[in-house]
């Protein structure tokens, strides 16, 4: 059983710059920040290293960090420019009994991040949901389609902070 600090030190030694920092500012668990395009390698290491053995992806979350610049458009709505979208991974080792939280932040303008669905199969649908709701593109995902919203939903990604609902969908009025 290892603490988050020990795991962070192990990762830092193995991956260097791809592991950015240990964020302890949050009220609960410390979060290990990693580079979005190195996630797969890091997760394979976390799963297969004999001292770590993270065999369980508890959950995967897509997140709009809402830290971009807010631009007021002509029609009165606001749009966010720049800033980041994040993916948060909660991992657990059932063999060794330790847990960590990983987080990878990617640019809002081109939100790409590596898929971990090959590492933990249960990530498949959770990544599809993160794509559906926040619009994060998972590279090398086997089947990156919307999972909850209709396939032909063109109004954007509903859980982004600057999302605006459309007036009509297939001739049906959407607002109350």
């Amino acid at each position, binding site marked *: 059983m290892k603490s988050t600090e020990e795991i962070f030190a192990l990762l830092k030694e193995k991956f260097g710059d791809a592991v950015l920092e240990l964020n302890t500012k949050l009220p609960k668990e410390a979060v290990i920040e990693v580079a979005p395009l190195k996630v797969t390698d890091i997760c394979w290491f976390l799963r297969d290293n004999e001292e770590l053995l993270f065999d369980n992806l508890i959950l995967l979350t897509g997140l709009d960090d809402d830290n971009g610049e807010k631009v007021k458009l002509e029609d009165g709505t606001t749009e966010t420019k720049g800033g980041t979208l994040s993916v948060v991974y909660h991992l657990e080792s059932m063999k060794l009994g330790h847990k960590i939280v990983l987080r990878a932040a990617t640019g809002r303008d081109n939100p790409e991040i590596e898929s971990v669905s090959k590492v933990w199969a249960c990530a498949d649908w959770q990544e599809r949901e993160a794509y559906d709701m926040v619009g994060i593109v998972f590279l090398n995902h086997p089947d990156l389609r919307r999972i*909850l*919203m*209709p396939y032909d939903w063109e109004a954007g990604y*509903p859980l982004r902070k600057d*999302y605006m*609902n459309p007036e009509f*969908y*297939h001739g*049906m*009025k*959407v*607002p*109350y």
Partner: protein
Amino acid sequence: MGLLDKEFNDDNIVISNVDDLLNWARLSSLWQMSFGLACCAIEMMATSASHYDFDRFGVIPRPSPRQADIIIISGTVTLKMATRIKRLYEQMPDPKYIISMGSCSNSGGPYWEHGYHVLKGVDRVIPVDVYVPGCPPRPEALLEGLLTLQEKIRNESLVKKTA
């Protein structure tokens, strides 16, 4: 001896008019489409089960829209589901009736403002006959809704358009 006199003398003949006879037959065997959407569907199933016994009003679940007379919209209608509901409704043979069950299908319910995915009332896609309020409605409320629908059917006419 005329027919009207016979009514009082012969046990096997009942005099009626076509409207009443058809309406009585129609309202006494409202076959329901097996279709549930959310938590209201649990209440609808409870209404079908032995304790409340929908069957005593002639309501039998049918697994196909082609054999159904009523569809109970029991739950949250998402925009994705709304297109399917419209198609199912169009597949049902006439005459067909709709009960909208619960706040979600009546008006969007708790999703009325921030539900980006919810249709704010199923009556935006199909014509509803009876609205049953509640979140979810108790089985008694659904039974009341059904009796209201039966009363509506009882007053239908072949020559007069009602709905």
